[in-house]
């Protein structure tokens, strides 16, 4: 296994693209190094992207935030401006593992590891995050909901690297939230995860909403029908019930020891309601 740590994305993309064997990007390593150790993966080349400044910085841009793909959960938590505007996204990222894992785990790694249960992904999708991707042929943007296609399968081409994520400018009276259901109280994989982001108008009517579910299908879902149930409503009980029904209808979960299909589907509705209520409370305050 070779290790490279270039300081530009262009150089990193070139190294990845020209490797004939298996090549992997290294961010925090909390998925990759576990997989290498357990021999699930044995890449010929590992390209560490953390020397590239863009991947490691959070900055305000176009009224929103640009978050480097390799910024850690611990760093997100310490960024008070980001936490104020996107508390749900930061909380989702902070659910990943222990304090030690937080010291390394990144949003880019969480998404690109390609697990349908990745905690930060529904929160990023709800937030409308757009990934900026650099590859051998230059840079392009892709919405986060379009990146993961199936377990371990991404819409990225050989040599492409997610450099950063742009979170859009926030309208007044907006709020987001992320909740997951796990059988234990800590350190577990989501049976269902739900991210909600919404904006109220001056009269308290829902003007915009995005709802995303994780762990209930082969990929994290943007559930447009669930958002439609909220938009135009005062987010009263009737709207929440309609949203929960839409969330349940979108589920195509697996059946396993951690949750049956019926259970995961039912919980998706319950969790969507609870998450929306937290986002609503935040939007009213914001």
């Amino acid at each position, binding site marked *: 296994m070779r290790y490279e*740590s270039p300081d530009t994305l262009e150089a990193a993309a070139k190294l990845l693209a020209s490797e004939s064997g298996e090549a992997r990007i290294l961010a925090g390593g909390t998925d990759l190094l576990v997989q290498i150790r357990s021999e699930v993966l044995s890449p010929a080349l590992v390209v560490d992207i953390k020397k590239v400044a863009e991947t490691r910085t959070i900055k305000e841009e176009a009224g929103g935030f640009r978050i480097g793909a390799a910024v850690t959960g611990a760093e997100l938590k310490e960024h008070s401006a980001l936490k104020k505007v996107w508390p749900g996204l930061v909380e989702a990222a902070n659910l990943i593992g222990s304090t030690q894992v937080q010291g390394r785990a990144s949003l880019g790694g969480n998404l690109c590891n390609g697990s349908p249960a990745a905690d930060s992904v529904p929160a990023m999708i709800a937030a409308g995050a757009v990934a900026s991707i650099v590859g051998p042929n230059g840079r392009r943007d892709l919405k986060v909901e379009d990146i993961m296609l199936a377990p371990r399968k991404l819409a990225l081409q050989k040599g492409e690297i997610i450099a950063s994520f742009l979170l859009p400018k926030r309208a007044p009276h907006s709020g987001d939230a992320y909740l997951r259901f796990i059988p234990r109280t800590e350190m577990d994989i989501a049976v269902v995860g739900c991210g909600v982001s919404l904006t109220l108008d001056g009269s308290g009517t829902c003007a915009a909403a995005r709802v995303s579910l994780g762990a209930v299908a082969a990929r994290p879902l943007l559930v447009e029908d669930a958002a439609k149930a909220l938009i135009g409503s005062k987010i009263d009980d009737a709207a929440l019930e309609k949203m929960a029904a839409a969330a349940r209808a979108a589920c195509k979960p697996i059946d396993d020891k951690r949750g049956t299909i019926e259970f995961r589907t039912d919980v998706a509705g319950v969790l969507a309601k609870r998450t929306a209520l937290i986002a609503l409370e935040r939007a009213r305050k914001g």
Partner: protein
Amino acid sequence: MKHHVTTTINGDETEFLCDTEQTLLDCLRDELELTGTKEGCGSGDCGACSVLLDGRLVCSCLVLGVEVGGKKIDTIEGMATGDKLHPLQRKFLEHAALQCGICTPGVLVAAKSLLEKNPNPTETEVRYWLAGNLCRCTGYDKIIRAVMDAAAEMRGA
């Protein structure tokens, strides 16, 4: 090919040679004979391998040795000052917060990093911060009490 890595460990500039596959934990234990840092699982679950990397608490089993060039690492070996134990170490002995001791270096490193950020944590904060440090022996209560007591002493309470 061996990598030549220069890093600062517990304040001292240190050099070592390693293979790409070797984790920071492997390098500390096998190349530098700093065996205070323990391996429990090798997969990020147990926290026995906890160290600080540029001041940040991490699992050294999930860091490659080649990644730490030019960085600052703090391990359990840097915790006592000569023969003088750190208050956390003393309180662990007083409260019998260890039995087999495998988890202890990791718990101590993690607890020290908490108290540096938050000298006055609640019991809940201590429990959450240390949730990634597994202990098969003590049942945790004695560990938590020792950390709370050390924090109080360090605050001068």
